[in-house]
């Protein structure tokens, strides 16, 4: 069975071998033992509530209980931008109009901003290629919303997720080539490497600070603002199902979209429910797939299981109870894996 659970110190070796699979493009998961060990330590301190709320970094691993292998990783940072400035471009609108000439021009504008300072962030999602099937990706990504729903008091008003931006077939970013490069004279990959070393804010110092009309950029760069990398499109859809939206914030390098939501309006906050565990085997006509999470902070665990809930009770097999570290009479949080269709759509 696959379970997503709070990381523990012993996971460091498994995490390192996962990170070795990641390849470039994910700046927060580099295969470096020291930095990963540091991160695991912070995560353990976060789950144990030994560090202030805003400094926490909740890292989860997906554990294959069949072979004790780590199949994936994901994380929630409690707040961004409080140590180092967190930069985005925000797309705004400016209207220039002249009645005399009968001209009404609506211009998109890029503002360099730190508006998202203090938001929580979903990050570091990686699923090992061997496990990319079925609903494993959903379980891994969405497990975090179950955590947030259960511990909403630990999170700020808003949650964000940065998505990788569009790239050409040759791996270059049209937005970087048309904007960033003019102000840096370095390749995107070098800028990206610097970012992974935590140097993004310094690079941001070189980006144009005055508002920029999007129309000044070449068409190719305009076209990719807010577009994700082709490989990232599925991840984007999963987050959008949970209530996250592109609201006009993009990455300063590749213009990848930032998805965001009010925590209180996430589907998990509105639709997930607590239920009391009861033992049993799921009935032959299994319900729709659902996420089931225990309610422990330090030992948080989530699995995917058919929804077998009625009258505030959820039926779980003894195996499932064992993996979730819960017993009959305990509360679990449940939510369907995918949202119901909107009746008004």
């Amino acid at each position, binding site marked *: 069975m696959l379970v997503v659970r709070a990381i523990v110190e012993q996971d460091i070796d498994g995490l390192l071998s996962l990170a070795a699979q990641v390849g470039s493009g994910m700046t927060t998961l580099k295969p470096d033992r020291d930095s990963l060990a540091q991160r695991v330590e912070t995560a353990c301190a976060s789950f144990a509530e030994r560090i202030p709320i805003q400094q926490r970094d909740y890292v989860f691993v997906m554990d294959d209980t069949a072979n004790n292998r780590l199949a994936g990783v994901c994380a929630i940072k409690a707040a961004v931008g409080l140590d180092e400035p967190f930069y985005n471009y925000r797309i705004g609108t400016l209207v220039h109009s002249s009645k005399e*000439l009968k001209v009404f021009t609506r211009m998109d504008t890029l503002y360099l901003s730190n508006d998202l300072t203090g938001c929580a962030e979903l990050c570091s999602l990686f699923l090992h290629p061997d496990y990319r099937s079925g609903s494993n990706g959903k379980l891994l990504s969405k497990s975090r919303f179950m955590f947030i729903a259960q511990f909403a008091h630990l999170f700020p008003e808003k949650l964000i997720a940065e998505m990788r931006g569009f790239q050409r077939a040759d791996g270059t970013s049209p937005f970087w080539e048309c904007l960033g490069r003019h102000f840096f004279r370095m390749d995107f990959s070098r800028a990206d490497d610097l970012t992974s070393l935590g*140097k993004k804010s310094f690079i941001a*110092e070189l980006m144009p600070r*005055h*508002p*920029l009309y999007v129309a000044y950029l*070449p068409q190719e760069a305009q076209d990719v603002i807010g577009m994700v990398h082709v490989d990232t499109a599925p991840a984007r859809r999963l987050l959008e199902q949970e209530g996250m939206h592109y609201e006009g914030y993009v990455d300063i390098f590749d213009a990848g979209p930032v998805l965001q939501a009010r925590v209180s309006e996430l589907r998990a906050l509105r639709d997930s429910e607590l239920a009391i565990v009861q033992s049993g085997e799921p009935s032959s006509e299994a319900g729709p797939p659902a996420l089931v999470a225990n309610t422990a902070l330090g030992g948080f665990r989530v699995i995917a299981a058919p929804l077998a809930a009625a009258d505030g009770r959820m039926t779980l097999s003894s195996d499932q109870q064992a993996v979730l570290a819960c017993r009959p009479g305990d509360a679990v949080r449940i939510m369907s894996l995918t949202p119901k269709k909107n009746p008004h759509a």
Partner: protein
Amino acid sequence: MFVVRPAETSDIPALEALAGIAMHGVHTLPRTRKAIERAVVRSIASFASCPEMPGDESYFFVLESHAGKPLAGAAAISATAGAHGAFFAFRNDVLQQVSRDLDISHNVHTLTLCSDLSGYSQLSGFFLCERNRAWPQASLLSRARLLFAAVAPHRFGDKFFAAMPGITDAGLRSPFWEALGRKFFQMDFLEAERMIEGARNRTLIVELMPHYPVYVPLLPAEAQAAMGRVHAEGELPFRILSGEGFVPDEYIDIFDGGPVLRARRNALRSFSASMRCQVADAGGAGEAPPSAYLVAAMREEKFRATVIECSSPEWSGQVSLPADARRALDVADGDAVLCVEL
């Protein structure tokens, strides 16, 4: 003999004819019958006024060879560029971008819409017929305005500018406009120039043009290359004004990116190198080899200027004028004239 004099009501048909051959978007003389009439009336009132300080006066001059012949050219000078609303230009600023940790520091050029030039006196509307484009006439037409300013300095500011036409391609497309103005005006360069009648002091400029600095590195190479470059039609006035003491520096035109030439009064030859002389007999002239001089009558109304060949009036304080020049300038022995080498 070419003479520059204030435009009169009777010049209006001839000015209309001139405007008909001047290129749109390049020459800034008034173009429609109505605009010409307005400019002439305003000029006549300006010459007749006695301003205590520079205001909204605008002086319109014509160049003619013989009374009665078609006009050879026209040019104007305004007391205050921003008298009717601010005068807008792009200022070429330099921003410092620094990253200490990356040890990177560089300057980025930006264009900022500004009204810094509003208090300047402005040279504009210079146009000369094709067949008269020789240096002496062109110089006379252009510089006579500054001689007038030297004769009546209280009518002008102590700083002057002239915007030179920027480059356009064969299709009269301005690469600078394509990159900037078009995005806000949503129309062709020439159409915009026609609608705005070449002015740079209209409120609609604030309404439509960018409020934030434009980062030069983001402009297409063609537009960057056009910044500060002069249209072929502008080369002659550019050379004349450069010789006079004007220099292009940090301002460019907001539409076509042409350079704005600027000068403080004291840097201009018409002020610093001109001499006030008395008209004298042509008698004692023959000593030094003659050279060409611009000569202007020292009076504010019925101002006249022309070009003559004479020996240097430098030490004598007197200048000998041939009869036709006296007639052209309407001066007699003992009258004061202002002379400056061509």
